[in-house]
């Protein structure tokens, strides 16, 4: 029985610009149908990695960079047929109309002439741009241009979408529209690599993420896995009414409590969540007879994860 290779397989990838090392030996693998969120501060090496996959980076070293089992270095022409690349800028010809723009790329992707019209209509409908089919590209709003770029990416029905900051510079409405479009693509089974700074949106879309900083992965895996890993040392903020005599020591002595820090108006209790769940801590405190005014476990969203894991370094 033959097993299908992962859609993307990267091993020990290095990208250097002169002496500057943008990517330092990262490795990752993305199965088919996954949406992989590439997260990192500016200059972390996200775009360089995506460019390697898009065959736009000539100078790099690696053990393996494969898409759908095909080496990017050995058969870039085949890779180009399989990918849809959207850079972090619009990349649209302003002297064309939306229809001309899409037909231009349909011809560039050698789509059968008889099928082009229907395909263009399909992608315009999907991106909700049917009404703008004959509008000059330079008259479209930023959000529309971004959707047009997405429509262009979909023309040849690629297996892998490489989206570099697709929502950057868009207003909230346009961001939501782009996100909904990506959700639709995800449901179609497309494999997507998406880099973004808007972490909240990635969390709703991605099945796995990789956080990159200074050219190296800080962490990668499924969101659940990363959350769980970080939640192992979750902080719970507790405000207690009345005398605190001996309370801190008692809490610190509980199994599963890593540390207790006395702050101005509260205690910050760091838990080993696999030994003591947040609910159990609350029950134990109540059993101790302390009067609890506030009990709040620190939220663990994508931004917190990002801030916890990165230090703001660049390569």
């Amino acid at each position, binding site marked *: 029985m033959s097993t299908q290779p992962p859609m993307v397989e990267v091993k020990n990838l290095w990208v250097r610009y002169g002496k500057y090392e943008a990517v330092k030996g990262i490795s990752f693998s993305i199965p088919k149908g996954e949406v992989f969120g590439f997260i990192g501060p500016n200059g972390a090496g996200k775009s360089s990695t995506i460019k390697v996959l898009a065959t*736009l980076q000539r100078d790099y070293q690696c053990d393996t960079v494969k898409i759908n089992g095909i080496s990017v270095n050995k058969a870039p022409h085949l890779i180009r047929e399989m990918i849809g690349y959207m850079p972090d800028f619009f990349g649209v010809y302003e002297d064309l109309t939306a229809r001309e723009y899409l037909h*231009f790329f349909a011809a560039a992707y050698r789509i059968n002439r008889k099928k082009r019209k229907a395909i263009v209509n399909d992608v315009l409908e999907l991106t909700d741009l049917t009404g703008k089919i004959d509008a000059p590209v330079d008259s479209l709003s930023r959000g529309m241009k971004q959707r047009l770029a997405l429509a262009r990416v979909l023309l040849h029905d690629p297996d892998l979408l490489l989206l570099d900051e697709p929502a950057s510079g868009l207003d909230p409405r346009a961001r939501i529209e782009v996100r909904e479009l990506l959700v639709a693509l995800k449901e179609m089974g497309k494999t997507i690599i998406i880099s973004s700074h808007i972490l909240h949106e990635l969390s709703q879309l991605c099945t796995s993420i990789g956080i990159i900083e200074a050219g190296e992965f800080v962490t990668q895996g499924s969101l659940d896995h990363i959350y769980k890993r970080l939640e192992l040392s979750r902080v719970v903020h507790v405000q207690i009414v009345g005398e605190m005599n001996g309370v801190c020591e008692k809490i610190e002595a509980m199994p599963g409590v890593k540390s207790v820090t006395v702050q101005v108006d509260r205690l910050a209790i760091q838990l080993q969540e696999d030994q003591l769940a947040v609910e159990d801590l609350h029950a134990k405190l109540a059993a101790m007879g302390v009067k609890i005014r506030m009990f709040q476990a620190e939220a663990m969203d994508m931004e917190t994860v990002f801030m916890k894991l990165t230090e703001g370094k660049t390569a």
Partner: protein
Amino acid sequence: MKLKRFQISLPLLSKELTEMANRRRTYIIRTIYALLFLGCVGYISLDQISGLQNNPLAILGRGRQIFESMIYLQFTAIYLFLPAITCSVITQEKEHNSLGLLLITRLSPSTIILEKYLGRLITMVTFLMLGLPILAFAYSLGGVSPAMFINGLWLLVLTMFQVAALGVLCSSFFRTTVSAFIATYVFGFLMIFGPAISYEMNLFYFRDFLDLITIQLQGINFNANTQSIGSWGLIANFLQNLPIWSNIVPRNGELSFVLFSPYWFDRFSRGIGFSALGSTVIYSIPTILSISVFLLFAHYFLVRRAFLPSRNYLLNLFKSLDSIFSKINQNRVTRGIVLVKEQIQLPENKPIAWRETSKKSLGTVRYLFRILITLEIPVLFLCLFIASSSPEAVVPGAVMLLWFIWGLVVLLLAVSATSLISGERSHETLDVLLTTPLSGKDILAQKIAGVRRLSLALLVPLLTIVLFEAWWKWEYAQISPHNRNPYKLEWFPYLVGSLLTIGIYLPMLIWLFCWIGMKVKSQTKAILSALGVIVLWCILPFILIFPVLILNPSFNEESVIYGLFLSPASYIVINEIAEFQDFGTIWGPLIINTFIYGGCYLLFRYQCHMHIDKNLGRLDSKGNFIDRTTLFPAGKQSLLSPDQ
């Protein structure tokens, strides 16, 4: 009370100078300029120094020639380089979207203009100062009068101010550096030679007008009637009594050079004392006025044209012409008849070629036809005009016209061919194009389709002049078969040489410019580099020979005469003026030139084709394209409609 210390703050000038000092290329260019300049002056002085080995003291008193050659070279440098230095002074800020930030500071528009102006002037001054050692040397040899010295420096400074002011004006008016660059050179040319050309051709009775003024001024000198009544008589009397008056009265046609300082240097530098200086100052007044006008207009346009949207002027011009023509077409006779209906066509198999030939102003047939008509009609008219007025075998007017058209061809090809790739890069569309399955060679071949069309349109006026000249030589040979220079009557070699040159040079220039466009990241830099490269290529062989001649004054120039053809301009010039005597044959130079530039054409074409992916910055496509459906199927659900 604490007194505030008076301070002059020039933040913009400081920034400009700091930037200039931080750039490595400042020092590289300065060094190259110094070498070229010293080489040129050395070469020009060579003849004087080389013949004096037996009596070194004879060199004393011969500083004038060295001084004059230095001054003329400095004038040339100002006219050639200063427009390029100044034309980007404001457009750069516009292109980087930083002009708005400058305008909201406390710097007034006039301060911005003046500081920017000074910044570029200082740059040029640093170049001119490289001539100081030669100046000192020439002065120490003797033969340079103080009047000549002051005249030279004054006119150099004035020319520098004038050209820089024109550059700043164009920079303030235009949106992009490229358009400012072209405009500065075109307006500069018109400013310097426009009046002289108008005078020669008596355009709009310009010659009559200038002659009238000249006669009036000359009349004051010789016929001024001291008894004349009224203010005119008083002025005439006053002028006549001025000691310098006889010196400053213009000769016929001289007023057409009123904005061209080198002419006045030539006219007055050999005079002595106050008379020469005073004359120079008087004839400098129009130049000073032009500087003020340029700067005032630069100030006027700075804010008004600070936030211009991106526009294709040529395309807009054509579109407005379209609307005028369609309005004219709506009349009782034609009733809006359309012979060929324009259809909205979509790309079929060659999308890039489609865009280049149907969406670009310099690639569309309709617009190219208009360019052709715009060039061809004046060319035909001028050919007829020249034919009716010239009694010579080599028609100077036609020669000049051909060179002018060549200049225009180079300019248009430089702009269009370098923008093929660099334009995509500047508009951030290249990466998107490179991820399509089109091979690099495919992209290049399609990209070049529009420029090919343009070159065909430009070919027509070139051929018209060449055919006219060949016909003229043939006719002349029939009428007057004997000429001191028999090569002037050789119409067939002239025709073959010209056709071969055009046939090779046009594609060679396209590939060269395209190659530069691939190598240089920004569109503006690519165009400027292309123009710089072609100018340098044309003059470099002449400059490179200087060190050889300086080191070995007895070097026989005849032995390297074919080295002339290392400059692509040489054959065009020699063929036009039929100066083949030194070669002894008319076909030898043609064969050598064809061989050199045919080779260059193949080399540039090869460089573009073979390294296209590398130059574009993507992985090479070495294999053949295979059907992607044979690969692993990945998408679970097709995006396309079920019937696709």
